[in-house]
C-alpha cells in the first residue's frame, strides 16, 4: 500500500511471530528465545517476529514452519466454503491478511488467499452497504444469524474494508437525501 510507511497495521503485521528452525549454530544470540541458553543450537525451534525472520530466511540461517492459519486443515476449509471460516479466530481480531509472501511455498498460498479474499469481499461490501442504509439506529436483530457470524469472523483487513464501504455508502446516501432549499 502507498501509505505503508505510516501504516500501524503493517507494523503490527510484521510483529506477528512465526516459528523458525535454525539450520546453523549461532553463538551469543540465545536471548531471542527468552534468554535461557547462551547460544542458539542447530535445529532448535524459536518463535520469531516476521521482521527478523525475513533476514534469517533469506540468508539461509533458518527455515520456517507454515503458521497455523495456513495449515492444511484451514486451507481445505477455505477451499470448500470461504465464507464460513472465521478468520478472526485464526489470526486474532487484530490480525491481518499476511502482507508479504515473497518467499516460501508462496504460489499455492497466494492462490488460496486471493480466492478466499475475493469470495468474501462481496459479502463484506454487501453487509457494509446494508448497514449504511439502516442508519445509526438500525442494525442487529433481524439481520439473521448467518450474517452475524460472518461479521464476527472478519479479520482486520476485512474490517477496514467494511468501514470504508460503510462510510462512503453513508455519505452518498446523506447527500442524496440532503436539500438546498431554504439554505440560501
Amino acid at each position, binding site marked *: 500500500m502507498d501509505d505503508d510507511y505510516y501504516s500501524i497495521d503493517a507494523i503490527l503485521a510484521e510483529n506477528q511471530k512465526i516459528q523458525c528452525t535454525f539450520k546453523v549454530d549461532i553463538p551469543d544470540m540465545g536471548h531471542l528465545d527468552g534468554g535461557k541458553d547462551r547460544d542458539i543450537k542447530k535445529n532448535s525451534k524459536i518463535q520469531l517476529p516476521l521482521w527478523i525472520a525475513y533476514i534469517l530466511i533469506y540468508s539461509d540461517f533458518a527455515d520456517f514452519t507454515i503458521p497455523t492459519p495456513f495449515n492444511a486443515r484451514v486451507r481445505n476449509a477455505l477451499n470448500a466454503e470461504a465464507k464460513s471460516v472465521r478468520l478472526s479466530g485464526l489470526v486474532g481480531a487484530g490480525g491481518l491478511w499476511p502482507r508479504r509472501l515473497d518467499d516460501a511455498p508462496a504460489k499455492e498460498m497466494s492462490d488460496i488467499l486471493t480466492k478466499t479474499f475475493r469470495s468474501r469481499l462481496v459479502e463484506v461490501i454487501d453487509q457494509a452497504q446494508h448497514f449504511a442504509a439502516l442508519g445509526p439506529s438500525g442494525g442487529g436483530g433481524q439481520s439473521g444469524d448467518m450474517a452475524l457470524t460472518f461479521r464476527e469472523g472478519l479479520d482486520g483487513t476485512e474490517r477496514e474494508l467494511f468501514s*470504508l*464501504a460503510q462510510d462512503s455508502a453513508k455519505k452518498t446516501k446523506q447527500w442524496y437525501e440532503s436539500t438546498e432549499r431554504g439554505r440560501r
Partner: protein
Amino acid sequence: MALPVALRDTVSPPELELIASEQLIEIVPLIAMERTAFISGAYGPLRPPAKSKVPIWMAMNLKLKRKCHIVAPEWLNVEFLQERLTQETTRTEFSQLPFRFSEIAKLLLDIASDDIQNPDKIRYLLKDIREARQAKSRDGLQKIDHSELSLPNLCSMEINEIRPFFVKAMGVLTHLTRESTADNAARFENF
C-alpha cells in the same frame, strides 16, 4: 496525514456537486443583467425573455430568488430516462448517461422541480436506474483483481462511492498475488 481517513483518498459528494455546478445550463431569465465577469468567466447578458446559458450554480442562485426559469437538459425527461432504465435492466453493460448526471439531476429536482415536467416520475426512474447500476458494480466487484478493473460508463458519483474500498481491495490483492521472481531478486539485493 492530518486529514481524516475518509477525505484522504476520495472527494466527498458535496464537492462533486460543486464541480458539476460549473457546467452550463439554459435558463429563461426574468431579470435583465449586463454581461458580468465572475471568477470562472463572464456570463450574460440576460435579456428576458431570451434564453441564456449560465453555470448551474448561478442558475440555482437565480432560481432560489425567483429570477429565472430553468430549461431542463434534454436527458432529464421521462421518455429518455425510461429508455435508459430499460437498457439498464436488459443489458449487462452500463448504459450511457452524462458523466455527472446524478449531481445535476439531484440539484435540479431539489431546487427547480417546478420547471421540470413530472418530477416525481423522474425521481423514481433515477432511483431505479441507480439501483440497477449498483447491482452491476457489485458484479464488477466479483471480477476484481489486483491490476485492473474495467467498468465503462460508470458515472462520477458511482465511481466516488465505490472508490475507497475498491482501491483498498485491489491493494490487498496486490499484496496477496505472488510477485514475479525478478521482483523477489531485487528485494533480496536490498537486504
